[in-house]
């Protein structure tokens, strides 16, 4: 094996050891684990319940049937659940790592700081949201009488992974802003609140909001554009193909922002 290969293997070993250690820590608080599981399931079912409640008096939404909307909501829930496994540290990055000075320790380890931040508070219970999402998608596919082949399901898997990564990249970019502005809360909360925007048919929004959700905070690509393609709807379905490319572009941007931030980092000196 050449030297680069050795280095990679070594890094991988360290990752695995750190990850296993962190999982042990998380699993040792069984009460927290169960509470997180319950709350996640409850939250997922609550947002689903809201969509169902909303459709009771209205019938359909601008030409969209309830099950069509549910398909998109389900896709988005699957992505969100995957993202939520690593989201804690991104939301609390400024507070936990910059202000409280934990980032010094991260810098000492010979592996990527970004990967460490993502993995350091890995949550398993939040995958409940992904599980609920799978159920929702399966249910609406049956209800809509869609006859999907393996190809469509593979596209669903790709969509869900890209969507989760897109969330990770967007919130990594926002977290990296904490290197430049010290603040406990950060600028992620309003962007977090934009997530539900991406779950509704984009054409109901005026063009500035559509453009925002397509190119600036690209949550439209998480579930809506791929969903329209899966449902065989005309119009913006073509944008579904762009979803992996947008994810890649935001990945590069996030890596760049992170690097820029780390270079800027000065310890609190504590």
């Amino acid at each position, binding site marked *: 094996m050449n030297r680069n290969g050795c280095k990679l293997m070594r890094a991988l070993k360290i990752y695995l050891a750190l990850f296993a250690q962190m999982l042990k820590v998380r699993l040792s608080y069984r009460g927290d684990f169960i509470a997180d599981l319950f709350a996640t399931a409850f939250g997922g079912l609550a947002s689903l319940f809201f969509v169902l409640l909303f459709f009771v008096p209205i019938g359909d939404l601008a030409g969209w049937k309830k099950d069509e909307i549910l398909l998109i909501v389900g896709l988005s829930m699957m992505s969100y659940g995957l993202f939520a496994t690593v989201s804690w540290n991104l939301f609390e990055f400024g507070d936990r790592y910059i202000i409280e000075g934990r980032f010094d320790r991260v810098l000492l380890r010979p592996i990527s700081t970004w990967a460490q931040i993502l993995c350091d508070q890995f949550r398993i219970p939040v995958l409940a949201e992904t599980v609920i999402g799978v159920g929702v998608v399966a249910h609406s596919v049956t209800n809509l009488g869609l006859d999907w082949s393996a190809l469509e399901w593979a596209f669903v898997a790709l969509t869900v992974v890209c969507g989760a990564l897109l969330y990770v990249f967007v919130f990594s970019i926002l977290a990296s802003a904490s290197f430049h502005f010290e603040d406990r*809360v950060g600028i992620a*909360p309003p962007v977090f609140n934009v997530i539900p925007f991406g779950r509704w048919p984009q054409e109901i929004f005026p063009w500035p909001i559509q453009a925002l959700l397509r190119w600036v905070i690209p949550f439209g690509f998480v579930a809506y554009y791929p969903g329209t393609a899966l449902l065989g709807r005309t119009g913006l379905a073509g944008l579904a193909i762009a979803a992996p490319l947008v994810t890649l572009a935001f990945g590069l941007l996030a890596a760049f922002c992170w690097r820029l931030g780390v270079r800027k980092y000065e310890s609190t000196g504590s």
Partner: protein
Amino acid sequence: MNPVRALHLPAYAGFFSGQFRKMLAYRTRYVTGIISYLVYVTTYYYLWRAVFLHRAPGAQIAGFTLDQIVTYVAISWIARSAYFNNVDRELAEQVQNGSIAVALSRPVSLQGTVVAGALGEGLFRFCFFTLPIGAVIFLLFPVAPPPSLLHAIAFVLSCALSQVILTHVNFLVGMCAFPLKNIDGVMRMKHYLIEILSGLLLPISLFPDWLQALSSWLPFQAIAFVPSSIWLGHARGGIGWLGDDPTQLIVHGLAVQAAWVAALALLCAFIWRRAARSLSVQGG
């Protein structure tokens, strides 16, 4: 409660102004908070516009026209910007780090200080959140004014009562920290529960009958549905006892809120007394 204790008003005023000044310290949270509320109202505004798109002008859904439902949604979020608080989180932190013991050594009641603090935070939120958020939302969206000055005054009073009700609900959630230690899960569940059952996301009038019936027995509807209905001057198609007459609605709405304040205050006092008796703080 001992009446002499309850009259330590200057002491409570200290908690009121203390919380007010604490809020001033967070600038980013302030700006991002305002943007968040704009995002909420914008989403639901376009959602409801889409719902009414293919319907005849003036069409109604469960007694709401488009203008009314837009007003309802906007007012509900504007009101929330004033009554929202994190009493549960703050209490849980005090239980976890043991500083709750200080509350026992004070000559004033914990419940009183928490409510006074929440009202102080409420005044801050009203001046610096609700007014600018309200101004922006009124400029951007077609929000109808209340039917009369009386309704406007009753609405403000009703929001203050919402604040007290939510504070007590949060107080109860915070008390869960005694048996549970970590109440993050409970707080999240409460958050989802209140979002839906208070009528914040959807007027209770639009719920299916069974859920309307259930809601009428819970305190949550007194948090959002009552003040917003007072502003609108109607709770049509909704819970019968709220009344259809605009003036009667005010009386009924405020009475329901006052009853919940009393019931929850008693419940909180009872639970706190029990919790305090079993309290053991290590190290001290």
